């Protein structure tokens, strides 16, 4: 039930694999990891949520925060999510119109990332 995070680089993207529950208890751990990755220079981040069992508004807040941080630097973030339960949460909060949502890591990293603006 705890949160587990792993990071790997695929075709110009930094893929952060998230496993477990992202909630009011663990969201700070995900936030710290995303901030670290972005501050180390990752411009194109993919958050792979395929193995997330539970996601609450705190977790959503962290994802939106990371997206804002990236956009300020000309980067972007997309999500991998194939789970109807989570997709429903993105629809309810209208975040499905804020994030690009992909069905697999392969789909998320298929097109080479746009070069940073500016």
């Amino acid at each position, binding site marked *: *039930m705890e949160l587990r995070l792993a990071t790997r680089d695929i075709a110009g993207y930094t893929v952060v694999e998230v496993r477990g*529950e992202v*909630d*009011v*208890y663990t969201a700070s751990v995900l*936030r710290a990891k995303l901030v670290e990755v972005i501050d180390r220079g990752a411009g194109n981040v993919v958050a792979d949520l395929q193995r997330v069992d*539970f996601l*609450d*508004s*705190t977790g*959503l*807040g*962290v994802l*939106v*925060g990371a997206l804002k941080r990236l956009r300020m630097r000309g980067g972007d973030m997309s999500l991998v999510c194939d789970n109807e*339960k989570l997709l429903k*949460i993105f629809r*309810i*909060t*209208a*975040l499905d119109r804020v994030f690009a949502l992909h069905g697999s890591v392969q789909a998320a990293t298929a097109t080479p990332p746009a070069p940073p603006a500016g």
Partner: protein
Amino acid sequence: MIPVPTVQLAFSAAPQYVRTARLVAVAVARRAGVSEELLDEVRLAIGEACGRAVARHRRYDISELVRVQMSDDGPYTVQVFDSCGAEVTAGDGTGAPAGDEEDADRMQEALLAAVARDLEILRHDAGTEVRMVWPVRRRLSGTGRVTRG
């Protein structure tokens, strides 16, 4: 007299206990006869309501326990009480929400409104109550002594 099935949970305002509250609310919902398809809603709604209460207690520096009451005398009803009454919230909270917390607050409202059935947020003198109701499929005997072959 066999009492009306009721579970009450109270916890100090720390994030880890929100998990405990989710666990309890879902276990009680399952036993109360809430259908499996609704349990994800229950889990999310109780998590959001309790997360909200914990955040409010921490924001206004309230040391009271957050209280949750579950009852299935009729449909499954969950009430989450914080102790942030008008008196407390009138003053400036020591840590007003900022950055992703503000985003999270907005999404919390959207989620609560969408997944909690019959959501009501009531303002009492002592604090606020978030009340949610889910239908139950069937009634339990209530005696807990039903024996199946």
